[in-house]
């Protein structure tokens, strides 16, 4: 038991840099804020490199509060990649909206640190702290366009519901602590395997824990906040909510349920089964009726939580591997799609109704084709990472003989095809109703979008490398 600060080097970099940025904000001046953004980006990249270098380490660190393992590092890299892309995408957005302030990046850094802690945490206290670091930073981020009521409303709804569900989760942690006598994962796992039939309080504790994570990943019926909050939050924050915070919650869930409670199998995979079905159905069906692309993507994000929950319901290593792969694929396509939406939108987040997409297909080919690729991937059509992810997760579910779950998943994704395709229909097959000015596409954004497309397609055609890494990651 020692500190071994090297093991949490990425988090140290993030937090340190976050503090530094916070300190520098006043002195940077108006023009310097962008430079703070790049500084943060550099920090995220550095953290990413650090995580990569830590690949291969084993054991625990920080006095047993965090694990060092492939799973943690894989998740870290994934989360850092998401945050890095979001930081890069956010810069032109913030400038356009006139809210280019260093606070954004500093909050993003803290949120990222919270996420990576969730991924490596070995203790419920640590998990809670990570979650809260993430949440509190994100509450603020959601309201970052403070001049706009929608953004504030979004932040408020996220905040109050987030705090509400956190309370449930905390209560759950309290029960688990009260039964197992410790908040350490290992100790809890030992307690579970030692006296198989744990008292009701433990089961209830686990249930309440699911509420907290279910809220974060937008599992029905705890998804109710997601559409409103996603819609109101600034676009890069929507990305962050949809990808970063969801992925962090999923990896934490995975670790808890795969590593700590494997003995509970029969009980909780029914919960995930039901949750998955509800989530997929509600997400996909409600998305059909949306007229705002951001809100539609919010529902789509709910639906994808459902697919990921299918992997949770499977509860086997294959499922874990599939979830990790899917999360990566999901990061590519969702960040990409929202980035294109951002480019196509006008200041004040205008022009994000589906009708605004009519006939733009052949006018802005790069953007339209990119958006199409991301949507196709989200729809799970092959040659994209989205398909591979679904394929792996469904395979895992079938391995556990969850045939009906897979059939439902397949049917709901068939419904989902409709709304993804509708955007393509609007872009390419309708005539434009007005002549919107050409959007400006910064080189950096073009590069990010290009990179994300590359990721979507390459891992769609040749998933082996990522899949292999994910495989290593789930060897707990």
């Amino acid at each position, binding site marked *: 038991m020692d500190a071994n600060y090297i093991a949490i080097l990425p988090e140290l970099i993030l937090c340190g840099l976050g503090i530094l940025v916070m300190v520098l904000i006043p002195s940077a001046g108006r023009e310097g804020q962008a430079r703070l953004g790049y500084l943060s980006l550099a920090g995220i990249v550095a953290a990413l490199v650090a995580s990569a270098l830590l690949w291969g380490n084993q054991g625990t660190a920080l006095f047993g509060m965090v694990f060092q393992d492939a799973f943690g590092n894989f998740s870290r890299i994934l989360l850092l990649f998401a945050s890095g892309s979001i930081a890069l995408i956010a810069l032109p957005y913030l400038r356009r909206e006139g809210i280019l302030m260093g606070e954004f990046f500093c909050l993003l850094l803290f949120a990222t640190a919270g996420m990576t802690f969730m991924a490596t945490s070995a203790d419920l*206290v640590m998990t*809670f*702290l990570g979650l*809260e670091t993430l*949440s*509190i930073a994100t*509450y*603020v981020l959601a*309201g970052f366009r*403070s001049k*706009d*009521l*929608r953004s*504030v*409303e*979004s*932040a*408020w*709804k996220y*905040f*109050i519901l987030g*705090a*509400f569900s956190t*309370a*449930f989760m*905390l*209560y759950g*942690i*309290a*029960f688990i*602590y*009260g039964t197992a*006598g*410790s*908040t350490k994962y290992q100790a809890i796992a030992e307690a579970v395997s030692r006296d198989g039939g744990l008292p009701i309080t433990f089961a209830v504790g686990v249930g309440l824990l699911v509420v907290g994570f279910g809220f974060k990943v937008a599992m029905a019926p705890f998804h109710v906040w997601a*559409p*409103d909050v996603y*819609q*109101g939050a600034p676009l890069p924050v929507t990305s962050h909510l949809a990808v970063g915070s969801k992925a962090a919650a999923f990896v934490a869930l995975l670790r808890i349920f795969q590593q700590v409670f494997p003995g509970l199998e029969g009980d909780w995979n029914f919960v995930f089964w039901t949750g998955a079905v509800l989530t997929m159905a509600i997400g996909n069906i409600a998305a059909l*009726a949306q007229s705002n692309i951001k*809100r539609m993507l919010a529902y789509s994000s709910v639906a994808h939580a459902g697919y990921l929950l299918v992997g949770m319901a499977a509860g086997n290593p294959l499922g874990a591997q599939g979830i990790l792969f899917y999360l990566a694929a999901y990061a590519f396509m969702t960040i990409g799609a929202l980035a294109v939406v951002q480019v196509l939108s006008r200041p004040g987040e205008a022009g994000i109704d589906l009708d605004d997409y009519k006939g733009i297909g052949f006018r802005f080919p790069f953007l339209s084709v990119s958006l199409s690729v991301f949507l196709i991937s989200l729809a799970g059509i092959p040659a994209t990472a989205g398909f591979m992810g679904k394929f792996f997760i469904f395979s895992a579910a079938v391995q556990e003989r969850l045939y009906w779950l897979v059939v439902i998943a397949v049917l709901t994704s068939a419904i989902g095809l409709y709304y993804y395709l509708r955007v393509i229909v609007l872009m390419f097959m309708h005539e434009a109703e007005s002549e919107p000015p050409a959007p400006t596409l910064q080189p950096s954004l073009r590069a990010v979008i290009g990179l994300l497309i590359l990721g979507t397609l390459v891992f769609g055609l040749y998933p082996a490398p990522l899949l292999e890494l994910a495989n290593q990651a789930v060897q707990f």
Partner: protein
Amino acid sequence: MVPTSHYLILGAILFAIGSFGVIFRRNAITMFMCVEIMLNAVNLTLVAYSRSFNQVDGQIFVIFVMVVAAAEAAVGLALIVLLNKRRGTLDVDQIDTMRW
């Protein structure tokens, strides 16, 4: 000595009060206060368990929770101020710009 279960039951009652408060109160600040009640109910539970185990882990956790709650309160109250500014009311039932 009061048995642990009494603290737990008290905690549960507090928690229930808090959660129903969130649902039934329409004022933003009151809602937030109800969430705080829930957090404190959890704190009580943690402390009770901690005492029954004769260890400090739970109590340390409570301190973390309090810190987090404080941070949350800071952010939350700031948001409520902002909300009041933008919407001109704290009645949460009138804050429904985004729906369906």
